[in-house]
């Protein structure tokens, strides 16, 4: 048990150092607050908006469209693995599937959901 004592001391010191140094810093440092000091990036790009500002609803639209098309292509994978055994039937199935996706794509396109500028 006693052989673990050095480790215990080490852990105790390690735990103590963090509050100690932070506390010392808080005590010793000069406290002068001005707008430049309070900026998120004191010496970086100037902030021009808040984080919780409004985002164009268009982002959601594109995200939703992307999400669906991205995930639906998962069904091509099983066909690609087994297309030799599925023969013509599998091919027809995949063509029908892709035709449905294309129809949805045409819909999205014609609705103007992919257009950025008005």
């Amino acid at each position: 048990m006693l052989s673990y004592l050095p480790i215990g001391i080490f852990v105790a010191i390690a735990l103590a150092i963090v509050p100690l140094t932070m506390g010392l810093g808080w005590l010793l440092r000069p406290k002068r607050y001005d707008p430049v000091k309070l900026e998120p990036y004191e010496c970086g790009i100037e902030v021009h908006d808040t984080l919780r500002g409004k985002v164009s609803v268009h982002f959601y639209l594109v995200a939703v469209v992307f999400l669906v098309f991205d995930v639906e292509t998962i069904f091509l994978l099983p066909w690609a693995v087994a297309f030799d055994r599925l023969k013509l039937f599998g091919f027809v199935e995949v063509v029908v599937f892709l035709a449905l996706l294309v129809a949805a794509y045409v819909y999205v396109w014609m609705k103007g959901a992919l257009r950025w500028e008005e």
Partner: protein
Amino acid sequence: MPVLNHFWHLMSPEWVLVIFGTLFLVLSAVPGGKNLRVGIGVLAVAGMAVALALVFQTLTALGPGMKVPVLIGLNGDVGLVVDPFSQILKVIFLVGGVITLLMSFKSLEVEKAWTGEYFTFITFAIFGMMVMASGNDLLTLWVGLETMALSVYVLAAYLRRKEHSVEGATKYFLLGAFSSGFYLYGASLIYGATGSVHLDAIRASLLQSVEQGGVKSIGFPMGAGLVIMAVALLFKAALVPFHWWTPDAYEGAITPVTAFMSVAPKAAAFAMAMRIFVVGLLPVSHLWVGLLAIVAILSMAWGNIAAMLQDNVKRMLAYSSIAHAGYALIGLVATGATGTDQGVRAVVFYLLAYAFMNLGAFGLVIYLQRDGSAGDSFEDFDGLVRRRPWMAALMIVFLLSLGGIPPTAGFMGKLLIFYAAVTAKLYLLAVVLAVTSVIGMYYYFRLILHMFLKEAETPAEVQAGRPLAFALSLCGLFVLAIGLYGQPFVDWVSRAALVVR
């Protein structure tokens, strides 16, 4: 070795709906005026009529008790089947869809909300339901369920500028996704317990364990999976205590969608529940009969009591639809208790009768709809008998039918359910059915009294329009025909059979 196969001609109604739905989707993006949208609506009615004819064609070709595998995998597993049960339910969905579409024309006109997407989603929703009626494994059934549910979520939020519509749809969607998770977890437990997701294999596995070790040998995962899955199905059929979304989603949605939601998705949820419980899980019926019996009693009691307290006709009909789902559930319990098809037939007949009477009752709300009002308050019905005697007469027929008074379809439906319950010696359920039906009369008669005794202060000008008038007459005709001359309908429905020997 069985080959991968696909009987296209038996699935022709589904294909018709997919082709039409995709066509509507593309058409609805075409810039154009109202006429184009109305054209899509007319085309949607035509498409469903074609699908209906094709369903009838396969139905006549099927012998009694026949079950044709439609989609067969490389290892011989059957994904979809076509049998009289599935085809009769498809008839109910499609008839519900056609009547809904006919009733939609007026509502869309009043709300100035013509879009092609509306018809697309109704078409795809019905396609999903048809898969739910035909599915033969837990996965196919679930994909059908989600196809339907996702379409109906969007339809519930259709009036997206109205607070009630969005709020109802949000609740419906969150609870619906939640119940979907339940269904899948239940399915995974059943898969773990039986080693298959195919209903036939699940039944075989359960039969084997029951024969070898008795009912005691059914382990905890199976029981838990069954209960968790049942929760999801009861949610979709809007039964107490899983009904909380129902009144809000029904009140918020545009009225034809409410009518649709109360009839077709409910029937589809029952179809799926019957398919799973009767085909797959009948060997362990002792695990679910009691559970469903309690749910049926709660639904009948709470549905009727809460409906009495409503001030809004759509909400009242929403609670009444919960009570009616409770009545129908008795049939499923009866099949579980006896192992015969009688209960299943009673449920199917009830769903058929309920489709006509409930669509009709909501149709009258649509009839009273006008610019700035949904026509869903009791006051809107004041003095209707004197203002519009024919419409009032139709509404009285629908309400008497919902109340279960002869000579209407609702009476015949309740009679069959009652008979199934008594045959299965479920006397408590039969008594609760009778008592709560009497309670239910109260709020239906309250509406009838409004039509007779009250006088409208400033009667609103309302128009029916030809499609709505036609749909209402159709509903009224069938409600009376089934009630007065029910035998052909009973014979027709009695072809539906699920119990496998």
